């Protein structure tokens, strides 16, 4: 089903652009969760011919982790911290969107020779995985809040997962490696989250205290 895979790849690109162009934390979390869902569907599609229980379990588990558990954790963290829903970017939303398009063009340039080497089902998948990783990086670099940093890490991880999937046709073990990496990233990411978020609280609190003076 190359067409269906193509559509999923395009949707993944759109989710990335949504992540770059959105000004709301909640929307960004949804975009990253959507990426995970798309990737889960893609993982099933890639292995459609020899679908066995192991593949299904792995795909469902990783999707559930990334589209369900992690967003829930993040949302809870936001709610409890009382952080504002607004993202504070260093690079404006329209500008990051345009930078994203530039990155996409770059990924097309890098991706097409790569996908020529690999007999991937969808030539787009490699390009898109590169783009997703790049988007994650861009989000990390260009956003101020701790939560957006986590989202960036997650998007990068999604990109790596997609990259692994593009090769998984030849090497199914990679998929499992991807899941392992997932768990690792999840733990790692949450550590950073907790650290960064608590730091940001302090910051916010001092701000409020200083505002009391006048």
């Amino acid at each position, binding site marked *: 089903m190359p067409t269906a895979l*193509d559509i999923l790849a*395009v949707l993944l690109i759109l989710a990335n652009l949504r992540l770059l162009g959105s000004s709301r934390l909640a929307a960004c979390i949804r975009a990253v969760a959507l990426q995970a869902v798309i990737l889960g569907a893609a993982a099933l599609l890639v292995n459609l011919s020899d679908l066995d229980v192991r593949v299904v379990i792995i795909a469902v588990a990783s999707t559930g982790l990334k589209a369900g558990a992690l967003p829930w954790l993040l949302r809870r963290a936001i709610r409890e911290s009382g952080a504002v829903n607004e993202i504070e970017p260093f690079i404006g939303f329209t500008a990051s969107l345009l930078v994203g398009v530039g990155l996409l063009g770059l990924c097309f340039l890098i991706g097409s020779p790569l996908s020529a080497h690999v007999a991937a089902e969808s030539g787009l998948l490699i390009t898109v995985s590169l783009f997703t990783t790049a988007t994650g990086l861009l989000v990390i670099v260009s956003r101020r809040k701790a939560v957006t940093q986590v989202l960036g890490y997650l998007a990068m991880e999604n990109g790596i997962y997609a990259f692994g999937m593009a090769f998984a046709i030849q090497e199914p073990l990679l998929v499992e490696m991807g899941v392992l990496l997932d768990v690792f990233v999840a733990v790692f990411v949450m550590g950073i989250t907790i650290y960064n978020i608590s730091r940001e609280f302090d910051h916010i609190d001092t701000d409020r205290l200083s505002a009391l003076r006048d």
Partner: protein
Amino acid sequence: MPIAAIIQVLLALLLAPLLPGVINRVKAFFAGRCGPPLLQPYYDILKLLRKGAVYSRTTSWVFRAGPVLGLAAAMVSLTVLPLGGTPAALAFHGDLLLFAYLLGLMRFVTMTAALDTGSAFEGMGASREAWFAMLAEPALLLGLAAMAVHTGSLSLSGMLDGLALADIRGPGAPLLLLVAVAFTIVLLTENARIPVDDPNTHLELTMIHEVMVLDHGGVDFGFIQYAACLKLWALAALLTGVLLPPPGGWPPANMALGVALILAVAVMVGVIESVMARLKLVRVPQLLVAASVLSALALALVLR
């Protein structure tokens, strides 16, 4: 097929005012009202054509020429658009550019007519129209370029004929989807619909198209209303051409299908207007840039 081509232009001229009627009925349905009659836009235009006129002392002939030229440009733009697989009367290599620039001409004359009144409100509307149009133009042209690459044709008629039904399910699907979304945003912008502009607000600082025509009345305003209907029809015809290529077969049936699809676009616009709020003004450019990005993405896919 010159006769078929002429028939389709006549169809457009005749049926275009139906589109706002359909949109209003859909909106009324969502709001639980019974809404104005389906033919209300016809009544409005006919009534306006029967009225006298009042002109501001500030205005000059530019103000009076605006509606006339705008309506003429809208009519000419219909002659390059195919309908339901019937090639247009003026189908040639590069007619898509004529189409895009005729829309530009319409905008230009509307803006100058608005500035002619010397009203701050109309100046503001003109400024915003120029701003959004500048952002919508790349989306339209890049989307058309993607279509041109996909179909190998530089003519709207050839382009829409070059699409086969198989394309929808075949490799062209992501591309067509992206272009369709981009063109939908262009359609909403060019026709001043929600989420870009609200056609129902008057006397508000946020409106764009309606504020530019505040001072027009009578016959002139009738022309403007009619031109707006034609423009909506034209962009809807462009969009349906992208979304659903003609299935082939008996021409009259195709044409009927084409008209039905355009009416379906009107229903879609009505639904969008019912379920969405107007965007904050500073957010609109972002939406338009996003449309350009979608078109560029489609182009990247097809050039890959």
